């Protein structure tokens, strides 16, 4: 592995057992960070002494566990962690366990540490043979007892972990005793190899309201202490070494999650209709199929943007058609969602593993990426298109091509799409009748030739994140220029207005799927622009719906018309914020939220 591989973004999916999102540094939990000495006793005369040493360690271990049990509060009724400590104490008292270990010391003349290890290995053999997953997993309790005994044998004081800044705890599994000795206020979240909804980690995490993802299988082997890590306990996803774009998106998600108040959820299931009966469709932006339940719960009418990139960057080799298909089947034709807009591959070629010919670019944002890359690597592109087409009979699909900058690209993409469709039809595959094809409007040239593009497609979807950075010529990731990133810049508003007008004149639908769509301060402006669909982070939906349901199209248009006469971004922002504060004082506090 080269240095690049060590910091590559990767995703692990597990079971989200405690909701919420955290972003932080990983801390690899090591229950026993001492080297355990194994040795043969030099003299048979030492055997009795060694047995006494073992018994003392048992006694000390038990005493520590009972002390911990006293410290743990009763949490999550019924499944309280105390009983797990009881189980561990019973293992320490298990006569057979003790006898076997003593027998090992006597007969094999090994030290107590070694003797305990031999006993545990015997149990491991027994447990490994069990058919029942749950029982097989109980070997972890025996190993826990072992580690506890060995820690006392080795004589290392188990001081509370000193973790400095707040960390995301990474472990194979955590027992309540482990969590009890952590400085729990220093723990941001948990990610563990094993476990399920009722595992110890899950129970403890929920009782502490800390996000947790368990059942990640090998997270302890893929993450090192101090790695950047995101834990999304709601979706059951862990992202390691998030690139700046992903990180920023998750910072938004985190903020939205924390802001989401229960009373706002009342708005989730209500239609997005203004008081004067103007209705807007609401889409949810997702990148993992695990986010679909949240999209539905927060009131998405459909999936307005399914980012398929993680199908590519989440793995060592390229996704097969079946890999795509498995995911798309969970997105298309889902009960409660009227449509799914799938955006084809939207990354640079550098995201392809092992593929050295697509070397680093000096300016990847303007490089060979998204549709440009797909049109060069047609075979790769076709794999994704075939999977999309194969799932199209299952429900309403909109296919969206990213980063279209001119008419040739959309024509070529459509030609390849038709080619794949015809191949599948010839093979007798059933294909949906009403697949719509659209383009992301995110390159300024696409806005300028929107008239021509509209003739080629069924819909536009405005990707404001990229459109803003391209039109204002700023790199969003460059902190020195982020102050220039301004969705309310008059140039941006005029571009959007133009796209909507051209789209509607041509009789096609115009959506917005950038972050701008989910910002409630802009909702009235977007209503005034008469976008057909606003697609956003699902967590943002309830608040945006609340604004939509509280306004009228008439006043929104009046607000828009007013700001379109203003010359600077600053004037527009000041005006819009003041107007929104006045109109929705509860939602927009005067301190600039």
């Amino acid at each position: 592995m080269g240095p690049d591989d060590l910091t590559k973004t990767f995703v692990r999916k597990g079971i989200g057992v405690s909701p919420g999102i955290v972003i932080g540094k990983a801390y690899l939990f090591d229950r026993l960070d001492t080297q355990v000495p194994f040795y043969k006793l030099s003299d048979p005369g030492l055997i009795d002494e060694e047995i006494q040493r073992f018994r003392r360690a048992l006694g000390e271990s038990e005493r520590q566990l009972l002390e911990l049990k006293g410290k743990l509060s009763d949490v999550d009724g019924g499944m309280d962690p105390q009983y797990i400590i009881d189980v561990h104490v019973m293992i320490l008292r298990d006569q057979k366990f003790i006898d076997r270990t003593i027998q090992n010391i006597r007969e094999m003349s090994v030290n107590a540490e070694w003797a305990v290890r031999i006993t545990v290995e015997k149990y491991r053999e027994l447990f490994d043979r069990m058919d029942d997953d749950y029982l097989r997993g109980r070997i972890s309790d025996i190993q826990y007892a072992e580690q506890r005994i060995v820690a006392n044998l080795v004589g290392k004081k188990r001081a509370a972990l000193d973790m400095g800044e707040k960390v995301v705890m990474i472990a194979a599994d955590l027992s309540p005793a482990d969590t009890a000795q952590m400085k729990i206020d220093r723990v941001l979240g948990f990610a563990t190899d094993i476990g399920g909804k009722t595992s110890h980690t899950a129970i403890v995490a929920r009782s502490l309201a800390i996000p947790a993802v368990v059942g990640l299988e090998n997270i302890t082997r893929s993450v090192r202490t101090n790695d950047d890590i995101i834990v999304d306990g709601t979706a059951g996803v862990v992202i390691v070494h998030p690139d700046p774009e992903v990180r920023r998106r998750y910072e938004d998600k985190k903020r939205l999650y924390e802001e989401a108040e229960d009373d706002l959820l009342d708005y989730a299931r209500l239609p997005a209709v203004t008081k004067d009966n103007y209705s807007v469709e609401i889409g949810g932006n997702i990148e993992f199929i695990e986010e679909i339940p949240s999209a539905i719960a927060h009131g998405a009418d459909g999936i307005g943007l399914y980012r398929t990139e993680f199908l590519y960057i989440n793995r060592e080799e390229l996704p097969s058609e079946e890999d795509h298909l498995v995911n798309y089947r969970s997105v298309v034709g889902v009960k409660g969602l009227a449509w799914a807009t799938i955006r084809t591959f939207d990354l640079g070629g550098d995201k392809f593993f092992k593929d050295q010919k697509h070397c680093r670019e000096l300016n990847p944002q303007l490089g060979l990426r998204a549709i440009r890359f797909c049109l060069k690597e047609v075979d790769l592109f076709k794999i994704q298109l075939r999977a999309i087409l194969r799932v199209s009979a299952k429900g309403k699909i909109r296919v969206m091509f990213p980063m279209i900058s001119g008419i040739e690209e959309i024509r070529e993409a459509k030609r390849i799409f038709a080619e794949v469709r015809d191949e599948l039809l010839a093979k007798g595959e059933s294909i949906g009748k009403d697949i719509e094809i659209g383009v992301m409007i995110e390159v300024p040239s696409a806005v300028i030739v929107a008239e021509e593009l509209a003739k080629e497609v069924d819909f536009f979807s405005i990707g404001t994140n990229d459109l803003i950075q391209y039109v204002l010529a700023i790199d969003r990731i460059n902190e020195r220029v982020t102050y220039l990133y301004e969705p309310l810049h008059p140039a941006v508003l005029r571009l959007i207005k133009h796209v909507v007008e051209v789209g509607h004149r041509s009789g096609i639908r115009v959506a917005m799927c950038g972050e701008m769509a989910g910002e409630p301060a802009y909702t009235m402006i977007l209503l005034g622009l008469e976008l057909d669909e606003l697609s956003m982070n699902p967590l943002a939906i309830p608040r945006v719906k609340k604004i939509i349901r509280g306004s009228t199209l008439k006043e929104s248009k009046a607000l828009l018309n007013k700001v379109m006469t203003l010359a600077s971004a600053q004037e527009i922002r000041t005006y819009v914020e003041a107007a929104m504060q006045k109109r929705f004082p509860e939602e927009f506090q005067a301190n600039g939220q």
Partner: protein
Amino acid sequence: MVEKKTFEITNQLGVHARVAAKLVETANRFQAEVFLEKDGVEVDGRSILGILTLVCPRGSRLTVRTEGVDAGEAMAAFSRLIEDKFGEK
């Protein structure tokens, strides 16, 4: 005094760690020796690891043998515990 009785395990999850812990706790309340047997394998009723290695899912038949002055009371306690599905579903 010796008592012996066979039970069917009827709780949904069978003899998992918590149930095993309850069996051990019950055995510890009496002076009598307690043995649990399934499919010809017998283990000490005070050994949690022994009980777990018996592997008793729902529907298993578990024989309890108590031996000692309070064998009768011990058996009554085991009957209540097992027939009450260990307080589970």
